[in-house]
């Protein structure tokens, strides 16, 4: 049979199948080629258009054909080169002649499995509807009933405790000569850090470009050292630059260990030279964006820098399996890892696990509650982001964070341990731009702190991604903003200083907003963890499920 490719449009998709359609304005275009030079996926390409006109200029029909050839820009309909809507073309167009437009009727997912390979991407869950957290309001406003506080005038200390916070009677302390001293026979006091309740969640060196990672890290250092805001950032699973580990800034960073154990030999080698203990150790068991799916850094991203920091050969695929090897039960898995990691820094550093949001979170929580060395539990909900995952894992797997944290908190309340074991909420914080409100709501539901990832990508580096599957090229190494790429041509678009400045902006602003939320509640020193009487929601089912007031 004649192969279909030889024929005209057989088996060719139309633009209507694609999620974004390029609107190109011939009348404005100067054919400068900036758009095609910058398109990360070659979804647009220069081409030639022919026009045939019939003119008749005389007083009687005097037909004359006129052919006009113009050059221009055309969108490709190849599914492998679909327009992701990133808008880099519009960004660089000097004459506002081109932009991608979202096509709500697209049938993209039906076709994006060529070669039997399911759609993989980075970014976020593509669900633009407001999350439960975003529906919560703060409905308890103290005016004449409690001493009212003024966020602008009063001094606030918005801080939280990262680490196991034992009640006084459980602390191995005794009074000797009028002074409190640690009892000699059981000298372990769990390490606790006082930190800002919004943290930068785990994003690895490798997932992020060097400019992005350094920008975040520098912003964190600035916040601590110039602004006096004790913000901490998690390394992600990709090791830590030894220069940072050995610097005094190490104390602002949480080191993550995950199933790939990447970079840990370099970290262990650096320990004797470290002058500061890290803020904490996070053991990653799961990720909210892709529960049960492991991580994979593609070989083409494993360049010199990544290979050195992770301690691996150049240009090989680096898999972090969905599960840790050689750990066969929850007791063993958690206890073994917490012990090992605590020992590395002489039990001076809080060690806690991070899991993806799940119905089984309570089982993990109760295991941790019984483990005196467990410092916290971090739960990453379904709205979390990722650098790379199967679309199905991102869109269809996971557990919303609100009820997950709430259940855990109420369970701790039953055990009387709600002030002992901090819960950290992650996944979709600030999804709709309301970072401080989301953080405050999670805190009132019972979280001690929240983690942000995508939010800081957008705020810090103008990430193009949104909940309409815009861009989401994180997994391809072709991030047009330079955030998630190891290609210097791309990541050198990103100025680490600017990223750092924006990180500072974000946390200073969130600090103000948290005060604006907490002040009317009459709270200025203690974080209102679990203060759920301040919350209301206009959805009765949500109210019942979260045990908060229904308001309307």
């Amino acid at each position, binding site marked *: 049979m004649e192969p279909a490719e030889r024929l005209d449009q057989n088996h060719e998709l139309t633009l209507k199948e694609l999620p974004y359609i390029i609107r190109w304005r011939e009348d404005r275009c*100067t*054919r400068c*080629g900036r758009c095609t*030079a910058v398109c990360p996926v070659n979804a647009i390409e220069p081409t030639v258009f022919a026009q045939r006109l019939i003119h008749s200029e005389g007083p009687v029909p005097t037909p004359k054909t006129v052919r006009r050839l113009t050059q221009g820009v055309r969108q490709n309909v190849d599914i492998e080169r679909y327009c992701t809507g990133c808008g880099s073309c519009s960004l660089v167009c000097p004459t506002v002649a081109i932009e991608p437009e979202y096509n709500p009727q697209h049938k993209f997912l039906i076709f994006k499995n060529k070669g039997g390979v399911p759609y993989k991407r980075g970014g976020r869950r593509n669900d633009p509807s407001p999350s439960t957290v975003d529906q919560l309001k703060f409905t308890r406003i103290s005016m004449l009933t409690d001493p009212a506080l003024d966020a602008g005038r009063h*001094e606030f200390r918005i801080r939280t405790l990262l680490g196991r916070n034992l009640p006084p009677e459980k602390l191995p302390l005794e009074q000797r000569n009028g002074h409190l001293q640690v009892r000699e026979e059981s000298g372990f006091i769990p390490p606790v850090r006082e930190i800002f309740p919004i943290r930068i969640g785990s994003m690895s060196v490798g997932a992020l470009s060097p400019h992005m990672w350094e920008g975040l890290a520098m912003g964190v250092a*600035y916040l601590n050292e110039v602004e006096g805001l004790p913000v901490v950032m998690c390394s992600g699973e990709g090791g830590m630059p030894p220069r940072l580990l050995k610097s005094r800034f190490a104390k602002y960073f949480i080191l993550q260990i995950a199933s790939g154990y990447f970079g840990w030999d370099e970290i262990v080698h650096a320990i004797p030279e470290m002058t500061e203990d890290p803020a904490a150790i996070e053991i990653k068991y799961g990720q909210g964006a892709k529960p049960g799916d492991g991580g994979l850094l593609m070989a083409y991203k494993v360049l010199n820098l990544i290979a050195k920091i992770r301690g691996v050969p150049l240009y090989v695929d680096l898999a972090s399996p969905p599960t840790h090897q050689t750990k066969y039960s929850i007791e063993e898995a958690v206890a073994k890892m917490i012990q090992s990691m605590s020992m590395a820094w002489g039990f001076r550093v809080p060690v806690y696990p991070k899991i993806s949001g799940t119905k089984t979170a309570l089982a993990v929580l109760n295991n941790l509650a019984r483990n005196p060395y467990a410092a916290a539990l971090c739960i990453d909900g379904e709205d979390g982001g990722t650098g790379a995952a199967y679309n199905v894992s991102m869109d269809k797997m996971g557990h919303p964070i609100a009820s997950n944290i709430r259940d855990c908190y109420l369970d701790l309340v039953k055990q009387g341990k709600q002030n002992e074991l901090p819960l950290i909420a992650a996944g979709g914080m600030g999804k709709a731009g309301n970072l401080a409100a989301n953080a405050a709501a999670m805190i009132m539901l019972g979280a001690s702190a929240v983690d942000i990832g995508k939010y800081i990508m957008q705020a810090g580096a103008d990430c193009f991604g949104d909940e309409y599957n815009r861009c989401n090229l994180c997994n391809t190494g072709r991030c047009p903003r330079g955030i998630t790429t190891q290609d210097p041509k791309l990541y*050198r678009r990103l100025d680490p200083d600017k990223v750092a*400045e924006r990180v500072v902006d974000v946390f200073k602003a969130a600090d103000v907003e948290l005060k604006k939320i907490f002040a009317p509640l009459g709270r200025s020193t203690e974080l209102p963890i679990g203060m759920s009487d301040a919350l209301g929601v206009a959805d009765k089912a949500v109210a019942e499920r979260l045990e908060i007031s229904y308001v309307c």
Partner: protein
Amino acid sequence: MVIQGKVNGKRVSSRELEEQIQQAARAGKQTLTIHADGQHGIGGRIWPNGKKLRITIDGPSGQRLGSMGMAGTEIVVRGSASDDVGWINCGAKITVLGDVTNGAHNAGAQGILYVQGGGGARCDTMTKYNPRFEPLQSWYFRDVGDSFAEFKAGGIAVVCGVEPRNPDNILGYRPCVGMVGGTIYFRGPIQGYSEKDVQCVPLTPQDWEWLTKNIKPYLKAIDRMAYLEELTRSPEDWNKLIAYTPAEKAARRGMKVPMHEFRTQVWDAGVGKGGIFGEYLEHDQTILPYITTDKNRRFRPVWRNDFYLPPCAYNCPSRIPSHKRASLIRQNRLEDALALVLQYSPFPASVCGQVCPNLCMDACTRGEIDQPLDIKNLGSLSLEIPAPEKARATGKKVAVIGAGPAGLSTAWQLALKGHEVDLYEGSNHLGGKLEMCIPRERLPQKILKKEISRLEEMGINVHLKTKVSRKRFKEIYDTHEVVVIAVGAHEARMVPFKGYEDVIPGIEFLKQVNYGETLDFKKQDVVVIGAGNAGMDIACQAYACGARSVTAVDIQPPASFSKEQELARSRGTQILYPKVTERYDPKKKKVHFKDGTAVDADAVIMSIGEVPVLDFLPQSIHTERGYLVVNELGQTTDVKVFGVGDATQPGLVTHAIGQGRIAADVIHTQMMNYDYVPEIQREIPRERIKTVYYEAARSDEFVVEEEANKCMSCGSCRDCGMCEVSCYYGAISRIGGDGGTFEYVVKDDLCIGCGFCAGICPCGIWELEENV
């Protein structure tokens, strides 16, 4: 007049006391003495109509003393006063001979407050300035409490700092939060203020003049003139707090320390120069724009002229570059164009022009918009072109056995390269199947003879009627550097069904016809077994021999090309398939098929292919299923022996010609000790040719110049200059060389890698490469 705040041991209510005071004021009283008992708001809200009213208060005065006080009201409190003294003061002069508690002059706008002692918390908060009036004054002799002057918008506050309750801090904790206007003069130590809102500066001469002038009535009023000298000793004892203007605040908004400064002085100092990744990064530590040139481009264009073969040349087994021929014609070099073909084939008129199915034309890109280029006619135009000049004689000697298309092509190419060629042919004609088998009506002998005569001009040593035996072969082998076997396939394949002995071998039939030994098929029904191209030729020839009907049968759909089939059908040939012949009954003149059917057959001709006769070869030269085993370069198992044409595999004449040329190239390099460089075998991807540039032709009349213009020059630059003109940045330029050569080059420092050149190139020459 004296007003009692307590009558008969009973406290007068605030409302009653206020009524008495207002009555006294309305009555024009000038002095009032009030023995207060904690009543609210004493002394305020009196409108003296230009007159003065002096109120002296004894006893405990209540909150908001003198609040909403007006100009003309003077209040002296003999002792301390409670909260909010002078709240919203609008001009009263209030002297407190003691301390004031919280909130003194809260929201005060005009007037004066003299305090002999100190102030409580939140004094001077929310004060105003109204340009219609003199600014408010608040004087505190000792110190003030926490949160002083919050949201202060106007007025002057003076804190003298004499014997303060807290000797380390006379303005209390966090003064001036939200302060936007007014002035605070203070004397003594403080512990911070809202740096976001105000700045602490030394006094100007004007400040000092105001202070030293106005402090005297103050000290007099509070009976502390003794301190005048100490307090006016030096402006350096004093400091001033003033609010930043909105413009100053805006300028100070943002980073406390600029980030680049933090990076160089704090971050890099802590982690090392170049940052945390400095030890691994090899690139410059600079930021790139989105649009970049040179080595920072993501892509770079490459002018890939003649990197790909056009569909015509790629699909031509002889690799005749028809696009080059068209290009030469467009350059007005028709002679060169027609001679060019002779470098590839000695038979452009006979083969391209006559017998070839022209696979080039089937593939031609032009065919997508109208008609393929007319290669048949273009080939025929080369008929009269003389033989090209031979290269200088090399002294090398090659034998070619067989003077069919393959052998002649090989001999032609070798002769062109200057080698001496001995050509051995069993028959007494040159041309092989072209001469013997192709019907004369498909290949007029005049054309073939003309081209053979051109071939003969090459000085090839032709040995006709020389059958090569084993012994002969050995002699040839020993006396030549290389031997090329091009004996063709001349033994008909026969299927031994019953009665096959009476079947005529097709090739013999064709040869007989071409040599005039015509069979007489008059009124006969002829059956041709095998409906390939040869079968179709046979059918035509059978009609030429007078046949009444010709039926061609095949066991599968006929392999013949449509043109050959059409010709045969036009004569009346019927084609039947699938028909597997079971037997031929020459007596009953019927061919029976295995499906039980039969057709009438006065004569049966078998045309299912031929095999070569290779009995002269030694065992060292391998054959397989009757054919000579060669690789794609024509090399046999003997390094000295090459094989081409139908002797190796049945094919078209053009295949034989192409094989001959390739074998000749390989033989040449082998004999001359060069490295053989294989030819380009890449076909240009179809989508790279921008057919949209061309308009469908309305006429199919053959005019050689127009034909050349129609050629889309796939993969071969037609030098139109489209890229040079299109490039927005002027990064492409044409460089001409000797003899009409040219190239297009890119100025890397101007090129952004947009791909316009690649996207618009009519011929698909420009290719965008990743710039690594």
